[in-house]
């Protein structure tokens, strides 16, 4: 037997009187308030917590990475301390060029002590030695700029290396002209690299001394003590 029954509407109608009392309305209000609070408050708090949590996870990663890099860096620094050579330190009020000249004069004195004929010292321009492009650290320092020739990761802290200018060194270039035997000149170079002052040898050009040049050089010349070689030594004296 078919009927035209709307069960849903009738059921709802039947239950309405059960909801029309103070206690039921209070319950409904409580449910509504709880749901409203749950919908508005809890997601916001969850979002806040989620952001903090993921941020902390990132910080933990950065911290671990930094700790590792710090350890490596300290080891490297300790290892490098074995090189006792010092960079020229220019005291406040002193002219850097004058300080550099003193080092250059040590070089001249050294050349003369090696029985080389000193011909002249020609000051060149001052320049900046770009350490950043020359040095590659075997570590990736978070927060450092991409100066070490290797990609660096950001820690998000914004700290680390502050500027390349603190890394680079200023220097004066000199061209020293000498004359002497090959052996004496080699001895001079040998003594030069042992100097406690940091001097960078840029170029060395050796040519036969003009007055001793000949079509067929004497094969024994390498053992001769006479000055038959001109040398132009180009070097830099860095300071910080």
């Amino acid at each position: 037997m078919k009927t035209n029954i709307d069960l849903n509407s009738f059921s709802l109608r039947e239950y309405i009187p059960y909801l029309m009392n103070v206690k039921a309305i209070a319950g409904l209000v409580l449910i509504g308030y709880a749901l409203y609070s749950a919908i508005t408050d809890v997601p916001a708090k969850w979002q806040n917590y989620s952001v903090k949590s993921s941020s902390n996870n990132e910080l933990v990663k950065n911290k671990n990475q930094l700790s590792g890099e710090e350890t490596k860096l300290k080891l490297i620094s300790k290892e490098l301390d074995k090189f006792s050579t010092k960079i020229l330190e220019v005291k406040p009020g002193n002219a850097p060029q004058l300080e550099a000249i003193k080092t250059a004069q040590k070089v001249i004195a050294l050349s003369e002590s090696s029985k080389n004929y000193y011909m002249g010292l020609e000051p060149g321009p001052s320049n900046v030695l770009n350490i950043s492009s020359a040095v590659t650290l075997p570590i990736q320092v978070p927060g450092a700029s991409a100066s070490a020739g290797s990609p660096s990761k950001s820690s998000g802290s914004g700290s680390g290396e502050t500027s390349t200018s603190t890394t680079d060194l200023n220097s004066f270039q000199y061209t020293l002209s000498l004359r002497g035997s090959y052996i004496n000149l080699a001895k001079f170079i040998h003594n030069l690299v042992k100097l406690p002052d940091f001097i960078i040898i840029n170029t060395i050009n050796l040519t036969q001394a003009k007055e001793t040049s000949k079509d067929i050089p004497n094969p024994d010349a390498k053992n001769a003590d006479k000055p038959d070689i001109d040398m132009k030594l180009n070097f830099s004296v860095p300071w910080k």
Partner: protein
Amino acid sequence: MSKVKANNICLNIFSSLSHLELLQYDVLKGQFLKVDSVEIMFDPATRDFLEDASHFKSAVLKLYQRNKIPTRIPATLVVPSFFTREYEVPETVEGEDIATILISEAERFYVFKKIDPAIGYINLKDNRLLYTAYPKGPLELIQQYLTELKIPLISIDCNYTAIVRGLVAMGVVQEEITNQVKWGLIIINDYNVFLAVVEGNLIEKIRESPLPLQNMEENALLAEVKGDFKEFFGYEILTRMVIVNNSFKVYSPLLVEMLEFQGPTDIFDQNQRTLNSLGAQEGPFPCSLEAAGGALVHVLPQVPALELFDTNKIQVFVDEERQNLIAYSLIGLGVLLFVMQFALGFLLSYLTDTETAQGARLQNDINSTLSSLAIVPEVKRKLFVKNGILQNYKINNLMIEMHRTLPPDAWLTEVSLKSSPDFKNLDLAIKGGSLSPDSLNAYVKELNKEVGTPALVPSVFPKQADNKQRYFEFSLTNATLPGGRP
């Protein structure tokens, strides 16, 4: 909106005025779920309760409890006709005036001289009405008891229209409804006989004849029914005759024989021997047609009820126990949700605070570590110095090796050493001469041990001096810088 539920309850005061019948009917499945009855005696003349009136209340409660039916389910009541007639209403009368007129009309009759009638009516054709009048007092008492039992009453129908509805619902007159043809209905009760011509599912005309209250011989009764039959149906063309016999006073087959109706005849003997609801063990019918029609009063609006109930008084009773259960459940759920969201919010706030503190600690640690990383520029500077020194050593070693490994018959004329600013390359160019080329290979090999990569590449050119001495000019270079190669 429909007032129908999936389960409809009908309380039927059986026409013998001796039983209150109950039916729970599943409308969707078309199943009789529960049928039952209790004995209650009514006064045929006044329809008052013959016993203590409160007995009705306890009897109804007993019916509901015995059949485990919740009292909140809406119910319909079917009462046996007390006084049912046709009435031709003036065209000018409408609405509530009709009820007033019908009450006045009923009160004209002797039976309502001392009692007030409740009126239910339906429209027939040609401005005629079919109305039923029932004693108002007993009806209100029944309603009051049902109200006290919190049984929501949604309709009070007369048994005649309920029977027609029951016949329609059971499909007995399906063909007549489909073809919209006339069929006859005879309802025999202990106290009256009802005759009706029905067209399709709508009553066209009726006659209700009271029967004497005292015992009457069956033959005389049959003769009276036959007389009414002949007079009422006359020359009506009827395709079917349905006889509903609710009385033991008349033997239905004998009645059929006497009526001499030529068409198909359906007989429904409704009594304690045929109705399961009235106690028959395996009767042919689960319940009376009145009860079935009453349960379907809102399902089959095609057969309108002689509605004795003021539908404006429909009440939805609230079960207090259930109401409290729902209310406390709602409050409990609300409290639970509130506590949960509060606890969750508190937990999240606590976790956020913990994370914030941890974040601050981590940031401090990182800042502390970063401060130690400030030595990076210094380390770079140291590394630069180291590389510079190593480059100087390399130049020194090359100067030594160039001289130490120079073959005895060879000499140098030019040497050029050039370091790149980043110390990564050292360009070397050597020029000289030799009396024999063979020794140069060993010389280059020795030098390359010190030079590394890129290695020196020799170029040798035979020459002749002014004194006719043959010798070889050579050039060794690993130039990587522009212009390095001679």
